[in-house]
């Protein structure tokens, strides 16, 4: 069955047939079709089943407003759920599936339950499924299985997305008649203009009214002329298939452009994106987003074959599809007449049911002439049919009140359309706080042309409630004149004649819900189709005191669907107003929120996926590390070698080997990621005194010192070694993860609190690359490459630094040690990173020099009891808790950051958790990091916890396990024989542990002083 007619102005190309499938059936459509128009052309009526009751549903709208026709497009990795068939462009080979109806569209099991819909009103689930409580999971499972439309893909997306930023003088949203005109007027004035429109073709509703004459030419010629001129202007950019979906503060508009979904697979390009998210920052915005026609609410108004009057005329005029042979159109206003006339002209039998007693005399004449029967003062109380509409039952309406005064005739039909007036598309206007106003004459929530001019937002066309084209074009002209005048520009409308041949409009009837003459107990009359919200549900909500419109929305799910109530909201508000005995403006609207229409997560994410999800920072030695087969560990943004397994080694074997090699001979670590800050100025010592807990006044040139940094609450926030380069020049190091934070911290204190201190700081983290040469043989290795100074024990002491040459490269060497071994940290310009690493490896070859990663570094430092900020601290630890009073200069004159907080009543308690060493009774047991420490192995919750294990390793050097952790009063307990046993609890086991000193290796420091 084909409903396709060769309509003269249709936008489909009947010379380009396309083949597609829907729900397993193969059909034919044409280039220019949407899936919806093609299905209608093929006589497909039922495309979905309703959410709650499983009722058969057809296509109602022709664009973004469609609530029913949600389809699954494509298969495999490209399958996409919940697209609106009215927005899916047809291409050859398109595969579409249903998203509801089980086992089939023709028979939905839910419809059996749907027969009992009277027991399932709004919110019924809150009142039931409660008994017995333990069956709720079972009930819920059934509910969940019944819910949901399309299927999520199960394969990773293979197509790509990105973002593009725009900064324009003017953004025009909507490419209908008024948007095109606005863009042209602005473009002529030289503004940088961006025009976005969500459809594949510009023209908006003009595409549905091709016969109207504007300035004496027909609509398509008129818009073609404007589009041509726009395309010739280099300051104007047009983006079609681009939906502005959100408007944020200060006119930041997000819009998503569909780039490939409309193309047959074969011509889609891998290099091209599927979708692009445009982020548009616009000085001024013109919203020309038009309006949606809202249907009237009546019994069985969800039968397939029932649609909005403008959809009916759009399918006819734009797509050349006659949705039936015998149409009934119910309307409360003039707007449906033109479409009715077009249908009649195309040979379709048309009956108009006008709820008004007085109809527009001009249209009366015209309908008469076209043989259209008009029932004036009637409404449709109920549509009749089972799987598709077969007829309409009319009622006579009261002339003043919306009541049924008598039963009217039955009119058979195969398509039924209704028009309750237009609802302006005010969504974007409201996203960042704008509010629409109820206009009682136009029966619509509208926005005024310059409603938000102070924010730079202007509105033109149907969105302002101006529904006649000529008036809309005039208001566009005037608004643009005002906008341009505000920018000191004059409007140039030469050659534009904005008169049309429209029939002038007469008032509409204020009606939303057609009375059924049965006290509302007749057939279900749907307000929100997608969520099966009937007028009775709104009445029930009000009866139960869900009186705020927001409660009504949430209780009934009105406007909750993927159409966000584009067709239903205003009807819902009006019905609620009636039930509440309030006016519509008193009821108000629900909140408009992005997205205007749904946006893929992929587009939102843009290029921030995969390799570029988050930065990975690498050191200059990365290539070498990869060659050595390192496994990597992310540390902040950095990727650091974790360990260097040899073939066949697991992490334990590798780390044991690395540890022993380092302690017994020499190892090497890439320490480049430590933050490094060069600080200069005459007040640098004072600055450090304030920033650090320790004192810096006495540190001699050529020396280094470990420093602890506290936040103002007295908690340890960072640590590192800082070197005195000269009296006015220090080089600070920070933790790898903390570098940026510390840099900002320093700048903030300097800029805001202590601008009088003469210091400057510059990050040199990236400039220096650092190879830490560690182990008893490190001096010998270094000596082979560094001959310009005396490296002997007394000439280059522990905690000294020197500027030297290593392997021919200028280097700054620090004799510091995070392992407790004799060690040298060799810093060179990062350009030499790879080189220096390899030279040191070569030089160390005879000592079997062993590269090691962060894991070995952790073991070595734990053997020495050195903390790692972030592992052994958690933001609630003071220096005293760490037993590091030696790093706190309590006598410094300036109250250094965090000092006062150390004296608060809680922080100064002596029975806080303190850092101690822990030795498991069984040396082969390595405690779980994160194990909780308790007093006894007897576990009956709740068990008092004393602290936890922060670091725990097998020490190959000691041949046993070691750990560090916090224990309440730990330092005291450590020294009390009999009181120094605790249990570490993890994975359901308690392990006996002895509290000991946290220094496990070389307490005297003989090794690092060697």
């Amino acid at each position, binding site marked *: 069955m084909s409903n396709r007619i060769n309509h003269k102005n249709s936008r489909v190309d009947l010379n380009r047939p396309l083949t597609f499938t829907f729900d397993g059936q193969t059909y034919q459509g044409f280039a220019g079709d949407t899936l919806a128009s093609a299905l209608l052309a093929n006589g497909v009526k039922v495309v979905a089943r309703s959410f709650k009751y499983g009722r058969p549903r057809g296509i109602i709208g022709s664009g973004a407003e469609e609530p029913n026709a949600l389809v699954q497009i494509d298969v495999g990795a*490209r399958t996409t759920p*919940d697209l609106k068939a009215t927005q899916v462009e047809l291409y050859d080979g398109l595969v579409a599936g249903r998203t509801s109806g089980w086992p089939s569209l023709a028979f939905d099991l839910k419809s059996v339950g749907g027969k*009992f819909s009277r027991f399932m*009103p709004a919110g019924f689930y*809150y*009142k*039931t*499924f*409660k008994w017995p409580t333990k069956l*709720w*999971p079972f009930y819920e499972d059934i509910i*969940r299985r019944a*819910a*949901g*439309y399309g299927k*999520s893909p199960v394969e*990773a*997306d293979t197509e790509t997305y990105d973002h593009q930023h725009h900064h324009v003088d003017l953004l025009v949203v909507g490419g209908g008649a008024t948007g095109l005109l606005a863009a042209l007027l602005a473009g002529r004035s030289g503004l940088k203009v961006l025009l976005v429109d969500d459809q594949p073709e510009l023209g908006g509703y003009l595409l549905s009214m091709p016969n109207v004459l504007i300035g004496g030419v027909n609509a398509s010629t008129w818009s073609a002329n404007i589009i041509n001129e726009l395309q010739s202007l280099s300051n104007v950019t047009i983006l079609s298939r681009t939906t502005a979906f*959100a408007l944020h503060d200060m006119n930041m508009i997000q819009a998503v452009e569909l780039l490939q979904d409309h193309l047959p697979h074969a011509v889609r390009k891998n290099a091209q994106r599927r979708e692009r998210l445009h982020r548009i920052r616009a000085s001024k915005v013109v919203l020309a987003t038009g309006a949606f026609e809202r249907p009237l609410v009546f019994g069985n108004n969800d039968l397939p074959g029932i649609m909005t009057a403008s959809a009916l005329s759009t399918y006819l005029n734009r797509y050349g599809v006659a949705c039936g042979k015998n149409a009934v159109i119910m309307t409360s206003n003039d707007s449906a007449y033109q479409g009715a006339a077009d249908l009649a002209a195309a040979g379709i039998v048309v009956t108009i049911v006008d709820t008004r007693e007085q109809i527009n005399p001009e249209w009366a004449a015209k309908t008469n002439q076209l043989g259209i029967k008009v029932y004036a003062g009637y409404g449709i109380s109920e549509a009749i049919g089972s799987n598709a509409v077969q007829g309409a039952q009319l009622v006579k309406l009261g002339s003043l009140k919306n009541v049924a005064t008598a039963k009217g005739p039955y009119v058979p039909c195969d398509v039924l359309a209704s028009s309750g007036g237009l609802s302006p598309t005010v969504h974007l206007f409201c996203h960042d706080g704008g509010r629409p106003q109820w206009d009682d004459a136009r029966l619509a929530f509208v926005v005024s042309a310059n409603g938000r001019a102070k924010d730079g937002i202007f509105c033109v066309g149907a969105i302002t409630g101006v529904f006649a084209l000529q008036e809309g074009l005039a208001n566009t002209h005037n608004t643009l004149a005002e906008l341009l005048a505000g920018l000191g520009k004059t409007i140039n409308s030469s050659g534009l004649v904005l008169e049309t041949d429209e029939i002038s409009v007469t008032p509409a009837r204020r009606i939303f819900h057609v009375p059924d003459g049965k006290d509302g*107990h007749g057939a279900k009359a749907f307000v929100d189709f997608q969520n099966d919200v009937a007028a*009775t549900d709104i009445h029930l909500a009000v*009866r*139960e*005191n*869900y009186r*705020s419109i*927001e*409660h009504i929305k949430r*209780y009934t799910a009105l406007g909750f669907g993927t159409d*966000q109530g584009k067709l239903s909201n205003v009807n819902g508000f009006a019905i609620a107003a009636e039930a509440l005995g309030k006016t519509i403006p008193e009821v108000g609207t629900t*909140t408009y*929120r992005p*997205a205007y229409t*749904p*946006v*893929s*997560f*992929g587009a*939102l*994410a*843009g290029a921030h*996926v995969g390799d570029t*999800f988050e930065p*990975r920072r690498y050191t200059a030695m990365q290539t070498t590390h990869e060659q050595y087969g390192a496994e990597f560990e*992310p540390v902040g943004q950095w990727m650091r070698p974790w360990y260097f397994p040899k073939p066949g080694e697991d992490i334990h074997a590798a780390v044991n080997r690395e540890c022993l090699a380092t302690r017994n001979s020499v190892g090497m670590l890439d320490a480049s990621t430590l933050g490094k800050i060069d600080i200069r100025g005459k007040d640098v010592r004072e600055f450090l005194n304030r920033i650090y807990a320790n004192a810096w006044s006495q540190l001699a040139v050529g020396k280094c010192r470990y420093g602890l940094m506290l936040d103002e*609450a*007295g908690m340890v926030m960072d640590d590192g070694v800082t070197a005195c380069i000269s009296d006015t020049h220090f080089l600070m190091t920070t933790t790898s993860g903390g570098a940026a934070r510390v840099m900002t911290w320093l700048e903030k204190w300097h800029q805001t609190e202590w601008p009088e201190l003469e210091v400057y700081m510059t990050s040199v983290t990236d400039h220096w690359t650092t190879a830490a040469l560690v182990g008893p043989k490190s001096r010998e290795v270094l000596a082979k490459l560094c001959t310009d100074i005396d490296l002997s024990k007394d000439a280059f002491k522990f905690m000294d630094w020197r500027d030297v040459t290593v392997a021919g490269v200028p280097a700054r060497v620090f004799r510091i040690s995070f392992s407790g071994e004799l060690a040298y940290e060799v810093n060179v310009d990062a350009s030499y990173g790879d080189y220096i690493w390899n030279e040191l490896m070569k030089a160390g070859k005879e000592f079997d020099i062993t590269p090691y990663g962060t894991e070995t570094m952790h073991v070595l430092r734990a053997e020495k009891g050195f903390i790692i900020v972030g*592992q052994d601290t958690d*933001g609630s630890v003071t220096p005293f808790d760490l037993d590091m009073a030696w790093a706190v200069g309590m006598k410094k004159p300036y109250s250094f950051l965090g000092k006062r907080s150390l004296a608060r009543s809680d922080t100064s308690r002596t029975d806080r958790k303190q850092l101690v060493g822990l030795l498991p009774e069984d040396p082969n047991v390595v405690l*779980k*990091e*994160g*194990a*909780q420490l308790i007093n006894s192995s007897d*576990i009956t*919750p*709740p068990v008092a*916890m004393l602290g936890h294990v922060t670091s725990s390793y097998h020490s190959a050097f000691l041949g046993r396990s070691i750990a560090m952790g916090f224990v309440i009063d730990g330092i005291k307990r450590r020294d009390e024989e009999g009181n120094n046993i605790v249990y570490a*609890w*993890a994975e359901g086991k308690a392990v006996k542990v002895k509290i000991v000193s946290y220094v496990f290796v070389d307490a005297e420091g003989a090794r690092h002083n060697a």
Partner: protein
Amino acid sequence: MKKDYSIWKLLSQGLKHHEGWTPAWRSPEVKSSYDVVIIGAGGHGLATAYYLAKEHGIKNIAVLEKGYLGGGNTARNTTIVRSNYLWDEAAMLYEHSLKLWEGLTEDINYNVMFSQRGVFNLGHTLQDMRDIERRVNANNLNGIDAMALNAQEVKDRIPMINISKDTRFPIMGASFQPRAGVARHDAVAWGFARAASNYGVDIIENCEVTAMDIVNSQIKGLQTSKGYISTSKVGCVTAGHSSVMAKAAGIRMPLESHPLQAFVSESLKPILDTVVMSNAVHGYVSQSDKGELVIGAGIDHYTSYAQRGSPHVIEHTAAAIIELFPMFSRVRMNRQWGGIVDTTPDACPIISKTKVKGLYFNCGWGTGGFKATPGSGNVFAHTIAHDEPHPLNAAFTLDRFHTGHLIDEHGAAGVAH
């Protein structure tokens, strides 16, 4: 309390066009005086009133709400309920709440759809895994169900998740609390409103508190958009607006109000039957009974009362979800929104007396107070009734910010939940 919501009543009403249902809660005229006034008809405020009436026998109670009841953060949260917090004080409070959740539907005769589908907190770094281990062990010692899982165990339970090692934040494991889950947020507010109203509590909507009448450090009454109300006890439960209320009382709070956003996808067939949270990638997701993916984003760093946030936060969250579930890239966001959350320096709430006698504050729940709704109301009711904290909220005083006794739950609280 009448318990008239049942399948039988529904069936019988079904035969009568549902015309016999009565208001879920009364909307009485406001009286000039109450024994206790609760400011804020969010879940916490309503629960407080309910327990005050039910457990402490106080009957002359009003709950004042500037908008519609349950329209604050209660209406806009991602509904995650769990109790796997690190520190004893917090864990015990949230666990108390979780236990109340388990019986709530029955207690208030309103199906709050509490769904114990389990919550995963993913770990992506070695430090994440240490923290997970630490928290899980603490939970277990506190008698709270929790377990630490490795990546494969996570994958076994959530087949859709990407545990590939090549991602920027490879999943190393997770903590899992089986008893945790989600609930229907609106139902919680409505159910408590109905139950409290049944006990005689007056819920006054569209009634904004604009000033506090405090004489000699004792609360005497409140100035509202519906006139003056005298009372000697006021419980302030205004979430994001707590600083505004504190200002009216002449006190300052350690609070910052930030936008926190969330979004939902279009409705999908069941695909995810649990709750997944990740601090490292900054996103969390569950699927509601209606089929949409409910996704929580992070907070905006600036303060705001505008109930909306910046788009880059949402964009980042979408990217995070794709990082965890690459197949969701083609799923579409249907609606996004924001709430105003009152964050504290230690990510723990304040349930406390103040220096104004008779004025109590319950605030600072920040990004994660929905889960505490019944428990918070329960202990706060106790605090108000006895002018003394319940043992479970004794640690959550305002005073801790002076002594330094913070209960740092940043690790367990994460970005949001």
